[in-house]
Structures are given as structure tokens and as C-alpha cells.
């Protein structure tokens, strides 16, 4: 079950945006503040709202964490008097919500929640935030629940997702292959003991995550999500800036892994500022792979977007513009 489309009106940086998605890999690029992570969080909240005990607006509040848990803080500052709305479509269902600057807490008006829950009841979705959190995961859920620390739900949820095991028995052939590839980088397997995460390299003693390099921890997280069955056919993965703290030489492996997951039915949303990551998708994809770039940009104060199957065909491409500006500076220095 794939996410097909989002309509956003008057929410955060968005005045009015209607965006369709690929069933495969959707890559968001754009300068800071263009709403890449906001779109992913809205989609993620909608996916989580497929569970009967999760309310769409409440989940939105928990992943955005506005002051006072008030969804009204998400109304666009430019058009504060108008109604804000979000509507998200899957193959044959949709869920929407409306709220204004007068809406209290998460009391937004929700539409089609029941149908959405019914259609997407079996949906598995995961959001990997930009900062690695497993190394600080001990007691995180309780601390957040007691308001002792402030982390949005993407951090709390990923810890939970990494701990559970919903895999159907033995590793499939594909899963084994993915795990071996990732273990080539991490040099070990992830284990969870007493709510803490460790990396176990071969027969050596386990290493607590705090002592493992952050880039390796991120790849180890991917290993764990594949191992425990979270990223199977029909799942949706959101990954905010996968390149953060990762050695550039591992980017091709991550891209290969994501393309493989897409081939096996995982819909993926990625946001990135990284030339290597963005370009490697273009280089490594096959004709049958579904990859769509979405560039969010500022057009006279309004966030707009363009999409293309090819990175180099985007007209508004801040990654490429930065890359070329560097080359121009390099040449100008010697000429």
C-alpha cells in the first residue's frame, strides 16, 4: 500500500502544495527551510494514524512538537487567519485534517480516519531521523513521557522500531544478502540487551553503541531494521538526511540497499543535501527502478516544487548549483 499524494494548505512553510509520489523512491532536495522534513513528518504521522489507537493530528503534534502541543502553531505565519489543511492519499483511501489558529491542542477536524485505518491496517512504517539516537535510547520513552526531555516522536519511535522483532522466522535469501552487505561496513551485528544497543563484531566482546562511530551506528540501525522485519514488502521508510555523519565511501552501499528495498516493495522517502547521495541514485538505478526527485524551492516567497526522474534534469537544483559554484570558484582562483 503506497502513499500517492499530499495536499497541504497553509501549513508551516506551505501556502498551497499538491504533490504526487512514486511508489518507489522519492528524494527530496532543497535548501534549509523549504519543508522537506515537514512533508516527510506529515506523511509519517498519517501512516502511524492507520493504527486505531493513534490520532492523526495528535501524531502530527508529537512529531512536530509545537509549543504547548498546540497544532495551531503549525498554521502558516503568513496566512494566520486562514484554515490550514492536510490531505494524504494512498491507493484507495485518504485521510485529512483541518485546523486554525483557534484550534486547541490537537483538536483538528479529521476526515476519513475510519476508512484509512481499515485500508492501511497492516502498514509498517519507519522514520529514521537525521541524528542517531540509539546510543542514547536507554529509558528514552519514559523520559519523554515524563517530560524530562524533549524529543519528537520520530526519535522515540525509531528506538521502539529497532527493539522489536516482527520478522517471520528465518532470514530470507534477500534479507541475508542485505545483512551481509551492511555487516561489511559495520563489522558486526546489532544486539539489544536490557534496553541498550550494542554492536557485536564477530566473536569479539560487544561494544556499546556510545563507543561506536555515529556513521556506523546509522548503518547498524539499517541492519537492525532489516533484520527485525521492519523493512519488508509493503513497508514505508522515511529517512531524513541519510548522509549525515556517514563516510562518503559508504554512500554507494546505502544507495544500493535502498534500491534493493524498493525492488522488494518498500516505498521510500529520503531528504538530502548531499551531492553523492543524490547522484548515486541516478547512476545506480536500473530502468525498472522507480526513482523520483522532488526539488523544493522558493519562488517569490512561496515554496514550490518540481519533479523529475533524473537528478540532472531538475531546473531548481540547489545541490548541483552548490557543486558547480565550487568548481567556478576553483577555476576563478587560478584563472
Amino acid at each position, binding site marked *: 500500500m503506497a502513499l500517492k499524494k499530499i495536499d497541504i494548505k497553509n501549513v508551516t512553510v506551505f501556502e498551497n502544495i499538491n504533490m504526487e509520489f512514486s511508489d518507489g523512491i522519492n528524494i527530496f532536495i532543497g535548501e534549509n527551510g523549504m519543508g522537506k522534513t515537514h512533508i516527510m513528518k506529515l506523511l509519517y504521522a498519517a501512516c502511524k494514524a492507520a493504527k486505531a489507537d493513534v490520532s492523526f493530528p495528535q501524531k502530527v503534534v508529537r512529531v512536530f512538537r509545537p509549543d504547548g502541543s498546540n497544532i495551531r502553531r503549525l498554521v502558516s505565519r503568513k496566512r494566520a487567519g486562514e484554515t490550514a489543511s492536510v490531505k494524504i492519499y494512498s491507493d484507495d483511501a485518504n485521510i485529512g485534517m483541518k485546523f486554525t489558529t483557534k484550534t486547541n491542542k490537537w483538536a483538528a477536524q479529521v476526515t476519513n480516519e475510519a476508512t484509512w485505518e481499515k485500508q492501511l491496517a497492516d502498514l509498517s512504517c519507519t522514520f529514521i531521523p537525521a541524528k542517531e539516537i540509539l546510543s542514547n535510547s536507554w529509558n528514552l520513552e519514559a523520559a519523554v513521557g515524563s517530560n524530562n526531555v524533549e524529543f519528537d516522536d520520530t526519535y522515540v519511535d525509531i528506538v521502539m522500531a529497532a527493539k522489536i522483532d516482527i520478522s517471520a522466522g528465518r532470514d530470507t535469501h534477500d534479507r541475508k544478502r542485505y545483512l551481509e552487505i551492511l555487516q561489511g561496513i559495520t563489522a558486526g551485528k546489532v544486539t539489544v540487551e536490557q534496553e541498550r544497543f550494542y554492536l557485536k563484531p564477530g566473536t569479539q566482546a560487544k561494544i556499546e553503541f556510545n563507543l561506536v562511530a555515529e556513521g556506523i551506528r546509522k548503518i547498524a540501525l539499517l541492519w537492525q531494521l532489516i533484520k527485525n522485519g521492519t523493512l519488508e514488502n509493503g513497508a514505508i521508510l522515511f529517512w531524513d538526511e541519510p548522509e549525515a555523519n556517514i563516510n562518503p565511501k559508504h554512500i554507494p552501499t546505502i544507495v544500493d540497499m535502498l534500491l534493493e528495498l524498493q525492488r522488494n516493495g518498500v516505498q521510500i522517502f529520503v531528504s538530502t543535501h548531499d551531492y553523492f547521495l543524490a547522484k548515486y541514485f541516478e547512476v545506480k538505478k536500473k530502468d525498472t527502478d522507480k526513482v523520483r526527485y522532488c526539488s523544493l524551492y522558493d519562488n517569490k516567497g512561496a515554496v514550490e516544487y518540481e519533479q523529475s526522474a533524473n537528478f540532472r534534469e531538475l531546473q531548481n537544483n540547489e545541490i548541483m548549483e552548490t557543486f558547480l559554484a565550487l*568548481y567556478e570558484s576553483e577555476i576563478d582562483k587560478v*584563472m
Partner: protein
Amino acid sequence: MYKTIESNMIFGPFEETDIFEIEKSNVNQMIGQHIRTVEFIMRREGKQQEEQILFIEAKSSTPRQQTSKIRYDEFITEISEKFIQSFEIYHALKYNRYRTDVTMGEHLMKQEWDKVHIKFVLIIHGHKMEWLPPLREALMKNMNIYLKIWKSTIVVLNDEMAKSYKLISETI
């Protein structure tokens, strides 16, 4: 004034005294076959009024590394050899290794080598700018020691960039 057309790009006009048309000179005939040279060598002033010597090679296309690594590597070798051999010939002429009526612009002949900035310039007609950095990196890697010894550098431009640096006036 000197003007020449290479790979559908019109180079110049430049002062004749700043130019050596190495490819068309009789030096190639004197030295023999299998010598590889650039189109021409020129002298000019840089932005900070520093003296520059540019070894200019023009191309209308390049092989793509993804399509044929062998052809790409051959291309890098070819261009590197053109730069290096042109540089060597220039010095051989400056130090009168050949008794010949070679017409090298007098400003080029008179260069004070402790002050000059040496640049090996490859200009490719019609290339997208994003294709240029990998070419530059490959050439710099291939000529690394040479560039270090002579404190020189490589520049890879497309026709648009070459126009902005007034190396070409128009394209055909």
C-alpha cells in the same frame, strides 16, 4: 591579430606576439612523428596582473567514463601527453635546442620563468559544466608530479566558461 578556429570555437583575437601556434609550426616536422601537441600556447595577464602562460587544447567531445573506461583513460593519457610534450617543446625552443625559424611570439620567448603562472587548459565545446570537474580531477591526478614540479595547474572549461575568460569570442 591572431585568431583560429578549433573544435567549432573561435579563439582570439590575441596579439600575435603572445602566441605560438605549436601544432602548425615546423617543430613537429623537425622532431618527428608521434609528437603530441596542444593547439597553441599563449601568454596573457591574469586578474592580478600576473604573467600567465596557457597551453590550450580544444575538443568537441570527450569519451564518458561510464560508457568506456578504456577509451576514457586513453583520452586522459592523450591530453596529458599533449600538455607535457608541448611544455617540453616550448622549453627546448626557448633554450635554442633547435636552429630553426620557428615563429613564436616574442612575448612568449621573453618570459621570466620565476614569475610566470603555468596553466594547462582544456576547452570542450558544448560540455555541461557538471561534466568538467571529474575530467579536471582525472587530468590532475595523471599529471600530479609534473604539476607539483612546475607549480602549475590544469583548467577544464566548456565554451561558455572560455567565453567568460575571453579565450574564445564565439562558437560555430
